[in-house]
């Protein structure tokens, strides 16, 4: 398990909003310990009659010892919320908010320079740890199953598809992390591969990439030099036309290196098993892991 587990004490920033309320309930149902909420101006109330709401994150941390934050505040205030969480001592920040202006993202990236805080997202599904019974995000909990596969992805529903296939093959997950589709993400593949490589509960990693950027190439370089655990990858967007943004702000082909073919080539050269048919990711993962003796046939 990485980043979140049974000891996670979650604070939800913007907890009183509609989306935040819906998803916070799902997180609690999954087993997450939600210790606090933050909504400026609503301090003192109890959210859903159980979780204390604070006006500031600083107060929330002081009173409850929250160590992980989940951000649902609107795009105009999300950058401030990230900096508030980081300055308040939160170790892992998951920002779900979509449509944050890039120059707002520049601010928090700059402010967090040199700090140890991990930011996942923005514009991401979050983190889930099935063995730790902890969900900090918006993914459907029931498709997951405790196990030893780490999953890292740049997308949301595509990850749910892949996780479902893994679960169908009886391949449980240690932790699944959605990095988000923004061009200035808080964490990238390499950051997460490092954690999975060091994690005793993870035997193998499934990496789901897409067009745009060179995150996959950087991952390949790391896998080649540092990873001993097997990696299975899928890269979406081989049919995407150059120069057009495909939904995610960061998903755009802008040169030969951001194409799927290049990413697949580099990953394969690093010893990664690259699956090309979306429908066969679960099956292929099973074959590879059985072949390595990591799971039984």
């Amino acid at each position, binding site marked *: 398990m990485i980043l979140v587990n049974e000891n996670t004490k979650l604070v939800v920033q913007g907890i009183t909003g509609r989306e935040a309320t819906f998803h916070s309930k799902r997180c609690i149902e999954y087993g997450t310990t939600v210790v606090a909420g933050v909504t400026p101006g609503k301090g003192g109330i109890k959210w859903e009659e159980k979780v204390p709401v604070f006006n500031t994150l600083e107060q929330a941390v002081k009173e409850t010892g929250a160590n992980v934050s989940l951000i649902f505040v609107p795009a105009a205030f999300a950058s401030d919320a990230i900096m508030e969480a980081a300055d308040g001592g939160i170790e892992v920040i998951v920002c779900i908010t979509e449509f944050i202006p890039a120059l707002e993202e520049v601010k928090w990236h*700059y402010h967090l320079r040199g700090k140890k805080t991990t930011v996942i997202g923005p514009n991401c599904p979050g983190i889930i740890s099935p063995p730790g019974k902890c969900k900090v995000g918006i993914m459907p909990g029931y498709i997951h199953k405790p196990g030893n596969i780490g999953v890292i992805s740049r997308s949301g529903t595509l990850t749910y598809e892949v996780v479902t296939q893994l679960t169908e093959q009886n391949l449980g997950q240690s932790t699944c992390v959605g990095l988000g589709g923004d061009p200035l993400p808080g964490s990238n593949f390499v950051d997460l591969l490092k954690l999975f490589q060091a994690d005793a509960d993870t035997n193998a990693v499934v990496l789901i990439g897409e067009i745009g950027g060179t995150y996959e190439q950087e991952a390949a370089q790391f896998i080649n030099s540092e990873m001993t655990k097997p990696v299975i990858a899928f890269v979406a967007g081989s049919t995407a036309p150059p*120069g057009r943004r495909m939904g995610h702000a960061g998903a755009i082909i802008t040169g030969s290196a951001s194409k799927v073919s290049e990413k697949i080539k580099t990953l394969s050269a690093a010893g990664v098993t690259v699956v090309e048919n979306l429908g066969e990711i679960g099956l292929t993962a099973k074959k590879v892991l059985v072949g390595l003796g990591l799971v039984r046939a």
Partner: protein
Amino acid sequence: MGLLRALYYRLSTASIACYSATLKGLLANFGIHFCKATLTDSYFSLYLIVSEDSMKIHEYQAKELLAQYGAPVPKGEVARTPEEASKIAEQIGGRVVIKGQIHGGGRGKAGGIRTAETPGQAEEIARSLLGIRLVTHQTGSEGLPVNAVLVEEAVEAERELYLSALIDTSENVPLMIASEAGGMEIEEVAAKSPERILKQHIDPATGLLPYQSRNLAYGMNLAPEYVRPATETMASVYKLFMEKDCSLVEINPLVTTNGRLLALDAKVNFDDNGLSRHPEVAQLRDTSQEDPLEVEAAKLGVNYVKLDGNIGCMVNGAGLAMATMDLVKQMGGEPANFLDAGGGASEDQVTGALKILLSDPKVKAAWVNIFGGILRCDLVARAIIRAVKEKGLKVPFIVRMNGTNLEEGIQLLKESGLDIVFESNLTEAAKKAVSSQQSVLG
């Protein structure tokens, strides 16, 4: 805006970091992108590619904005009729250039930029350009409509330079780029002679520092009289970039001519996510330059990109939407579009998205692929039924769903009595979409 500025400058007072890191990796940006040819640490070949996305405006609008921020632009004005063009040419006096205004490059080679010696000639050229669809190597075969021309003083350039501002997504800070090799596509310069591309990473708390502008100006080997105008132009470009949430401000070429420095051509693109705080910028959008179905999709809040194939796909989530298109191709078909209704779309959005898909005459088969998470399968089923009832069903329609409320969704589709094929297996669904389209054509 004032509030945002205040917040902005309240940021970290940390000492100015020295951004020594070289550009690494292809940096997916909003406007310009970089990539390296190899992954070796010792050598980078840098490519810059101007992306076709994020909100674009016309050259004349870009120049108006630059002028507002104090950057020097040639004398000129926009005309929407040949008579207006003649009048502007007369006011300017002497030789003028008539530039067709479209959202696409390569206008010169395509005959979209022409010189006139007299106001009469200017009128003639404007008449020949206004109302046509200009086809360039960037527009596709259908071209883009010319609804306005920019009439501008003709300038004899002594030197052609390059200047731009964008965000470097590997360093997560703004970046200013300058080159003495202007007037050609900058990615070409980056590929052939990367040493001629000068970069200054900008500390977002202090902004572009005067010495950084000097580094760029002297680095371009400018004659002394051009150094100050150049550094002032850089300050203007940076200010515009930051204040209007641009994804790219590019002047190419920036020319020297008889002691004047001028932005001869300019491009300003905007971060779509910043538009809500700049209504005056959002107003500059010219939807005549965009695909009508894409404009409709944007209004609906769904992501739609038209492609060349004939299998229409509707999916929730961008990654799954791309992977679905890929699967269509792997099964021997060609996707007609990228259509991401969103991970948490509403019934109206899904219905609207499907109607857009079914409006495309090129679509010979429709495939809906949904992973129900937040978006429930029963909601999708209701949306499908609504869309099909409103639009009619002229093509084979395949639905593959999985996830939340799947059974209810299937039940609704069955009860609807519509001729819809349900297939739970992903690969099989793709095969069915491809083969049904083939049988329609056959």
